C-alpha cells in the first residue's frame, strides 16, 4: 500500500522548468528523504505535495486519491517548515490548536490531543508561552507538535533542522528518527544535508536540476550511486574520481592516465565487458576505501589495486584523519586512522579496495560497473 504516488510530475515557472517529470512513491510508514543541492526542485516538489504550489502536469495521489486540485487543508497532510512558521501572536497551545479550531474539532477532543502531543514532545511547561520566548530547539518541537496533533496521512518536513546549531541539529535528528519509529507515519523529508538523509531515511530520493537522479535505500545510494552526481553529492568528503581507460578486451584492467609519467595499471574486481579496449571510463573510489598498502592486509583476499601517491596535506579531525594525496596526477582524499596518518611529502603505496569501487561511463556519467 503506498500512501504517496507521484507520476510524471512537472512544474515550470514561465519558461523555467523546475521539475522535469518526477516519479516517486512512498509506501505506508516509510521515511523518504528528498535530498539535493539548493535549486534542485526538492522544496518545490514538497510544496506541490502540500498543495501550496500548482501542478503544471502529472499526478499526485495521496492514499490512492488524486489530489492535484485539492486544497491543502483537505489533503490530510501536516507540514513542518524550515522557519517553523509559528504564529507569533499566539501561545504554544493556541499554535497547536489553531488547525483544530479551523476544523471545528470539539473542545474536549482538542484538549486531549494537546495533552497527548505535549507529553510526546515534552513541551507541557511551554504551552502558555509565545514563540518569541522559546529557544530554537523548543520552537522546532512546537512546530512538530503542531504537525503531530493532526494525525495526518502524510508528514512533510521542509529542511526542519537547518536553522539549528550543529549540536542541536544532531540531537533533533535522532529525536525525529525516534518519533518516526514511534508514530510510524509516512514522512517526506526535504534536506540538503546528505548526512540527515542517510541517517533518517528508509529510502533516499536524490534530485538534481529538477530530475530524480536515484531513488533507493541509503546503502545502495551510497555504495552504488546511479551516476557521478549522486556519487559526489552523497558522502563527505566526496568520492574521488580518476579518469581511466579500459586496458584490455576482456575489461579486466584499467589504465589510469598519469600526466607525464607512465600510465598506472589497475586490476578490476569484476570484469567490465562489452565495452572493448580503450573505452573511457571514470573510476570512483570513496576516501574510506583507500588505505596504506600492507602485504599482510592484501592477503585477506579482497581485490585491491596498489598505486603510488604523494601526500600533499594532512587534516586531523580527531576520530579520523583526512589525507590529501596526488594520485595519477589527480587530487584525491583518503580517510586514515589517526595513528596511521602519513606525513606531508611522503610517497606512499596505497591499496584501493576495488570491490567497493564504482565505474562510470566518461560520457554519460552513469554507473556502469
Amino acid at each position: 500500500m503506498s500512501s504517496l504516488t507521484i507520476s510524471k510530475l512537472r512544474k515550470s515557472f514561465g519558461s523555467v522548468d523546475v521539475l522535469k517529470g518526477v516519479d516517486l512513491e512512498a509506501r505506508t510508514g516509510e521515511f523518504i528523504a528528498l535530498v539535493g543541492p539548493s535549486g534542485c526542485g526538492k522544496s518545490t516538489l514538497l510544496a506541490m505535495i502540500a498543495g501550496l504550489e500548482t501542478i503544471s502536469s502529472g499526478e499526485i495521489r495521496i492514499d490512492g486519491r488524486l489530489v492535484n486540485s485539492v486544497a491543502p487543508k483537505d489533503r490530510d497532510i501536516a507540514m513542518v517548515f524550515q522557519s517553523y512558521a509559528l504564529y507569533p501572536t499566539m501561545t504554544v497551545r493556541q499554535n497547536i490548536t489553531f488547525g483544530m479550531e479551523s476544523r471545528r474539532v470539539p473542545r474536549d477532543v482538542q484538549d486531549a490531543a494537546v495533552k497527548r502531543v505535549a507529553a510526546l514532545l515534552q513541551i507541557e511547561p511551554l504551552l502558555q508561552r509565545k514563540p518569541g520566548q522559546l529557544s530554537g530547539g523548543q520552537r522546532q518541537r512546537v512546530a512538530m507538535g503542531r504537525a503531530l496533533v493532526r494525525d495526518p496521512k502524510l508528514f512533510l518536513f521542509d529542511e526542519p533542522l537547518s536553522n539549528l546549531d550543529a549540536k542541536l541539529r544532531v540531537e533533533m535528528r535522532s529525536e525525529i528518527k525516534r518519533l518516526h519509529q514511534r508514530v510510524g507515519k509516512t514522512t517526506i523529508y526535504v534536506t540538503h544535508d546528505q548526512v540527515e538523509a542517510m541517517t533518517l531515511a528508509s529510502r533516499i530520493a536524490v534530485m538534481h536540476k529538477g530530475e530524480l537522479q536515484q531513488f533507493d535505500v541509503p546503502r545502495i545510494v551510497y555504495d552504488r550511486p546511479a551516476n557521478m552526481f549522486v556519487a559526489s553529492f552523497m558522502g563527505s568528503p566526496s568520492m574521488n574520481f580518476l579518469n581511466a581507460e579500459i586496458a584490455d578486451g576482456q575489461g579486466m584492467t584499467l589504465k589510469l592516465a598519469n600526466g607525464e609519467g607512465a600510465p598506472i595499471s589497475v586490476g578490476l574486481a569484476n570484469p567490465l565487458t562489452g565495452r572493448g579496449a580503450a573505452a573511457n571510463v571514470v573510476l570512483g573510489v570513496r576516501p574510506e576505501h583507500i588505505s596504506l598498502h600492507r602485504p599482510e592486509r592484501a592477503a585477506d583476499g579482497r581485490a585491491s589495486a596498489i598505486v603510488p601517491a604523494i601526500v600533499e596535506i594532512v587534516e586531523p579531525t580527531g576520530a579520523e584523519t583526512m589525507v590529501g594525496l596526488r594520485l595519477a596526477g589527480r587530487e584525491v582524499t583518503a580517510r586514515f586512522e589517526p595513528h596511521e596518518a602519513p606525513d606531508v611529502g611522503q610517497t606512499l603505496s596505497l591499496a584501493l579496495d576495488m570491490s567497493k569501487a564504482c565505474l562510470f561511463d566518461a560520457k554519460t556519467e552513469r554507473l556502469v560497473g
Partner: protein
Amino acid sequence: MVDAALRASIDDPAAALAARRHFMGRVGVYAFLTFFAFIYILPLFVIVANSFRELPEIIKNGLIGFPHSFSLKAWSAVWSTYCVGGTCAGIQHNFFNSLEMAIPATIISTVLGLLNGYILTKWRFPGSEVIFTCMMFGVFMPGQISLMPWAFILGHIGLSNTIAGLILIHCVQGISFTTLFCRNYYLNIPDDLIKAARIDGAGFWRIFFKIILPLSSPITIVTVIWQFTGIWNEYLFGVVFTAGRSQPITASLIGMATGGTSIRVYDVMSAGVLIGAIPPLLIYFFGGKYFVRGLTQGAIK
C-alpha cells in the same frame, strides 16, 4: 590602587584639558540647539499668547509681543458666536464637521489599506503587481488634478456640499498611501505563516483576522495617524466642495482669514487656529512614539 590611578588621571594635565574641551564642546552644542528650539517654538508661542490677549492690546503693542492682558473671550467667541461667512455661530459646527469627516474616512481608508496590503502580498494573483503600480500613481498625484473629476462625480451622485462627499474623496485619495504602507509592512511577514495556516485549514478571512491583524498594530497606528492628520489638515477639497455650515474647520479658518471685515481679529483667529490644531496635536502627543516605532519596525521574528 584604583583610587590612585583615578587621582593620577585627574592630575594629568592632558586629561584635564581634554575634559575641559569636551565640556566647552557640550555647552556649544546645547546653546546652538536651544537657539533653534527657540526659533521653532516662537510662532506657537505667539499664537497661544495672542489667543489670550485682548484685541486692543494686540493692536497697541504689536502682534509679536509679551502679553499685558489676559482674557478667554476670544476662545468663547470663536467657538460659539463669531461670524464666519454670514452665520454667527462660531466654528464649533465646523469642528464637529471635521470630526465627522476625518474619523470615518480614516477608519475606512485604513481598513481598505490593510486589506489591500494583505491581498497584494499574501494572495498575489496575475496582474496584482500591475494593480499595485497603478495605485502608486495616487501617491505622487497632486490633489488639484482630481478636482474637476470629483466635482463631476459628486454632482452626479448627489453628494455636493456634504460631509459624506468629502469622506468619499478622502477614502479614495488616501487609499494609495494606506495600501503602500500596509503592503510594505506585510512584505516582512513570512509567507510560511500563511502556508502553515492554509494547511491548518484557515481561509482568507480567518488568516486575516487571526494571524495578520494581530501583527498589524504598529502599521495600523502609523496609518491612522497619517490619515487622520492628513484628512483633518486638508482644506482644498473642503473649500471647493463645501460652503458655510458644511465646511470642515480648515476651510472655515480660511474663510475667517479672507473674510470681508477690514479689522483683523488676531485674538479670535489665534484661538480658532489653535482649536483647529488640537486634534492632530493630541494624536501626535499620544501616538507619536508609536508612529516612529511603527515606521522603523522591521521583520517580525
